[in-house]
């Protein structure tokens, strides 16, 4: 058996171990590779930056714990930015399994930034219906969410003063891990109620959302852990996303190397097979 044949039939657990080490070593010993901010992430940052204090910012955390590593750092960075700008923050989710986690991130960051529940921010929780919830909120926010996550009547909350429906919201960002997310917010929300919409998403669904970005249907897009790291750089508060970028680069390098090597081995076997056939 030639070297190429041996390498192509290698135990896959060795590959897993290699990828594991490529991830673990940079996490333990970071080198701090440079992070360049992309225009689509900058657009979200710039829009929030342009909002005057007291503007209403709605963050829809449309993901569950399975997508936490990518979208949780995005949520943290966006919340910190919004609180730093003294925006009134409305948190909610269209994903039932993510309700507890969404409440945890909103209330934790608010506490760390010295914000008061009901006055500076509110977490509405989850309501069933997906697109129907957005339509309902566009007509009357208080009918869609009569109470917040802590069962406080939403009409009594100071943070919602002057907010009757989605038309009164200045900026909506949906952090989505799949269907019932950014596209739903555009189709049933922005297209009808004319608020500005930005998005954050997992890497898997990012390519499918670029057409919406190009056509201006969303004004910016934060894609995956990389997007979260860019946002952390923009707000000047490096967190888990930036910490993970070295590991991300190392694993990408390892995978590219493996793809090249596999192709070299494959073609060398094919070439030697052809040569043997000629003899």
């Amino acid at each position, binding site marked *: 058996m030639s070297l190429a044949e041996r390498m192509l039939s290698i135990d896959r*657990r060795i590959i*897993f171990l290699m*990828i*594991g080490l490529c*991830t*673990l070593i940079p*996490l*333990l010993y970071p080198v701090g590779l440079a992070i360049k901010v992309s225009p689509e992430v900058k657009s979200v940052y710039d829009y929030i930056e342009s909002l005057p204090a007291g503007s209403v910012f709605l963050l829809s955390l449309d993901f569950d714990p*399975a*997508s*936490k*590593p*990518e979208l949780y750092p995005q949520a943290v960075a966006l919340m910190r930015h919004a609180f730093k700008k003294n925006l009134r923050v409305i948190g909610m989710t269209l994903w*039932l*399994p993510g*309700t*507890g986690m969404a409440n945890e991130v909103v209330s934790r960051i608010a506490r760390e930034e010295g914000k008061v529940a009901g006055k500076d921010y509110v977490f509405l*929780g*989850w*309501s*069933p219906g997906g*697109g*129907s919830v957005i*339509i309902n909120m566009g007509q009357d926010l208080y009918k869609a969410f*009569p*109470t917040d996550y802590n*069962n406080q009547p939403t009409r009594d909350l100071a943070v919602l003063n002057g907010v009757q429906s989605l038309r009164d919201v200045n900026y909506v960002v949906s952090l989505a891990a799949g269907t019932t997310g950014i*596209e739903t917010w*555009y*189709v*049933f929300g922005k*297209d*009808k109620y004319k608020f500005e919409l930005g998005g954050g998403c*997992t*890497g*898997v669904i*990012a*390519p*499918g959302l670029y*057409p919406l970005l*190009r*056509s*201006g*249907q969303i004004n910016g897009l934060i*894609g*995956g*852990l*990389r997007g979260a790291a860019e946002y952390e750089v923009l707000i000047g508060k490096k967190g*888990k996303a930036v*910490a*993970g970028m070295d*590991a*991300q680069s190392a*694993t*990408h390098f390892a*995978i590219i190397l493996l793809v090249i090597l596999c192709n070299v081995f494959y073609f060398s076997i094919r070439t030697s097979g052809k040569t043997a056939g000629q003899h």
Partner: protein
Amino acid sequence: MPFEVIFGAWVATGLTLFILTFLYEDNPLFKIAEHLYVGVSVGYAIVKTYDTVVIRLIYEPMVKQGDWSLLVPLVIGSLMLARYVPKAAWMSRIAFAFVVGVGSGLAIPRVISSYILKQIEDTVRPLVSLATDGSTTFTYSLLDPASNLNAIVLLIGVVSVLFYFFFSVEHTGPGKVVARTGILFLMIAFGAAFGYTVMARMSLLIGRLSDLIDYSHPEYGRATWWLLAVTIATLIAFRARRRGMEPPQ
């Protein structure tokens, strides 16, 4: 540090390690974690749905605020349960008809507007731009999505991919060139999607390993180290037991 945080860290660490053991081989530890994940997810969904829908959105508005109009959606929704009674199963069709009718009515116009009309509007862009003095200009930047050069690339991509999926004409001669161009664009799209998928999966691994590193610290009782040792010992024990049960050759 509160006990519940430390307990949560130990549970998260244990389940992460149990799931990762599948990379070595299928084993009972992985099955335990897998079944727990399914069970906890379903249990959580049932409790949250009951609390939000039944209590907050139906019971409290009706009983505490006297909003009896909610009986209408409640009755329509309850008709779905009629499927479990064979003689009354036909009544569930009323509920399904309502859901399908309302859903289609809400979705069709919005989806056509958002996905079809808006996307066509963005795809059909002028190939050259008109300056203020009436002269034509052409921008060459590949990095600018709105440049004229990219408008041409977009036009070629859309036409060639659509042609590739047009099977009524044999792809020969000039048609073959167009179809091959379409394949090229598709390959680039698939490559981009695969690259993003790899990035996403690696991000998940980074997230779990970051947590494992955090939980290996003394304030969490070195959960990662202890549970890693337990996991490895259990795997060895399972392997030894399996070998002992194998019939002699």
